[in-house]
């Protein structure tokens, strides 16, 4: 039984890991080896050319060809700024409103909560055109502010619902005790409640961050040169006059994926506690 289970787990892990493995190996392969039949898993010649091409593209032809810096570093910076700011905003607002929804008598509370959730119900493709027109009119097209607002709003429903759930788990007696001990409600929230929700905040931040980092449709339509994020940049480089260069796509994707992997790995303890909050309690 135990052997069977081990084999099953190895199989499932292999299925999930394989695309990642293929991406990593492709990023170190030459163009020819990526397509070689039978496929080469380990016995290929390692090259870093793909990574160089991610940062320096070839401009010109023939003997005029030379390396110039690509737009990728800029895109990485854009993605970072937009993701960090929108995640911070979404989590902060979500934490505060989650607390309010959890603790206070708010007229039409359930309707409001449903309304917040409903902002998440339409697919991006459906609302991207109206949003584009609005952004053009308001001057938010191709700005950091525009993208930060968009991703904050998009993540807010998730963040509010998650944080309300975490707040509900904390007995309201904690604030009551702190208030009797001589503190205002806000001080009680900051000193007593907030530290108890760090796990929840970490979990919410990871999910919001990943969503903003990976978002493609809005980024493609609402950004141009200056604020373009990584996903449309990689996609834009897929097809070139010389065909699809999968090695470069794989290398760019790997660089793009790294921060998410590292961040998730760092907060994995909180993440597990956050995700299972309230379900298994010691």
């Amino acid at each position, binding site marked *: 039984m135990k052997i069977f289970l081990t084999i099953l787990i190895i199989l499932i892990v292999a299925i999930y890991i394989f695309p990642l493995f293929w991406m990593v190996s492709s990023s170190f392969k030459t163009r020819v080896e990526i397509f070689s039949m039978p496929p080469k898993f380990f016995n290929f010649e390692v090259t870093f050319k793909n990574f160089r091409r991610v940062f320096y593209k070839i401009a010109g032809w023939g003997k005029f060809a030379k390396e110039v810096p690509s737009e990728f570093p800029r895109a990485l910076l854009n993605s970072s700024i937009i993701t960090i700011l929108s995640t911070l905003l979404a989590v902060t607002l979500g934490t505060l409103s989650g607390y309010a929804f959890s603790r206070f008598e708010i007229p039409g509370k359930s309707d409001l909560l449903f309304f917040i959730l409903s902002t998440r119900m339409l697919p991006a493709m459906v609302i991207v055109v109206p949003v584009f027109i609005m952004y053009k009119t308001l001057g938010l097209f191709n700005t950091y502010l525009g993208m930060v607002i968009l991703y904050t709003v998009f993540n807010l429903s998730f963040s509010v619902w998650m944080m309300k759930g975490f707040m509900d788990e904390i*007995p309201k*007696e*904690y604030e*009551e*005790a*702190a*208030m*009797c*001990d*001589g*503190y*205002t409600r806000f001080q009680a929230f900051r*000193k*007593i409640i907030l*530290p*108890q929700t760090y796990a929840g905040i970490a979990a919410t931040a990871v999910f919001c961050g990943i969503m903003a980092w990976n978002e493609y449709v809005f980024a493609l339509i609402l950004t141009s040169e200056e604020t373009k994020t990584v996903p449309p940049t990689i996609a834009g480089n897929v097809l070139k006059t010389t065909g699809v260069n999968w090695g470069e796509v794989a290398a760019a994707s790997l660089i793009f994926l790294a921060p998410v992997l590292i961040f998730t790995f760092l907060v994995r303890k909180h993440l597990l506690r956050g995700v299972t909050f309230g379900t298994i309690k010691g």
Partner: protein
Amino acid sequence: MSSLEFKNVTKRFKNVTAIDRINFRIEHGEFVVMLGPTGAGKTTTLKVAAGIYHPEEGEVYLDDHPVTHVHPALRDVAFVFQNYILYPNMTVEENLAFPLKSRLRNIDEEKIDETVKRVAKLLHIEHLLHRTTERLSGGEQQRVALGRALVRKPRIFLMDEPLSNLDAKLREEMRTELKRIHREIGETFFFVTHDYVEAFSMADRIIILNHGKIEQIGTPDEIYTNPSSLFVANFVSSPPLNYFTIKKESGVFVVDEEGCESLTCNIKADTLQDGKRYIFSFRPENLASSLKKSDDTLFDVPAEVYVVEDLGTYSVITFKVNGLLLRQKHLGPPSAKIGEKLWLKLDGNFFIFDETGKKRVRE
């Protein structure tokens, strides 16, 4: 001086009235216990006193100043919760220091440190100061919770069943301990519990609350010997009070309960009205039994011993008279065997209430 007074206080939650026009006054230095069953509104009363809840009607006074809508932090009251509510992100020491670090008080670090150490010593928890709160036992958590109230000199200590989560032995110890602390510091204590033994062992006065209304206020002795309603009499009785409905028919009392046809009851109560129903009750400790019939036997038929419980220091015998089950409590081992026929009589107090049990009828 620190007194607490409730004048006509009503607190509602949506359509539920948790406490209903409550009036009482606690004087400085008193130890008052509010006693009542679960859901009677005890915790609500305490939270209204603390300012956590604001009442819809009525006024709350602290030291004769109206504080009905004053924030808890500004009332200077200490609250001990049933589940202790220790701050999990802090050590025991930080928990104890927390009330003193409030900006309202502006106490310097040295003084805080000194106070925390003094209180820790008072409660015998000096060795726990650097532990995190989740690694404490129930009794230790309870002491820390108490300590958080004792570090300052609040106007009044509000305690919401702080002993109910402790095991029986520790609970008894802490009762004595609390009483000692109260005597030592001489402050006003307002304590809430559903355990009448706890109330009787600690209180100077007891307030009995039922369905959001005060049934009776009095010293433990008054409550025990002079209950104002069937509820009070029954609530402070263990084993449960003996009571049944009687009806006066041309000068003779007849038991008016199902399965007790034509059972007459020998009670001397001349002031009761003919043709009306009353509730007759007495405590298990006031029931006596004998082998021979005498003038003062309660019923005109003997009772059969139905159940015998030996509880060590005392025993409980349940008698069956027609369809009526009556309990007797006496010290020592049981004096009767199952199936034995004995004559019952009253040895001490009995209480007669009106038909609803809400009002005592003076006999």
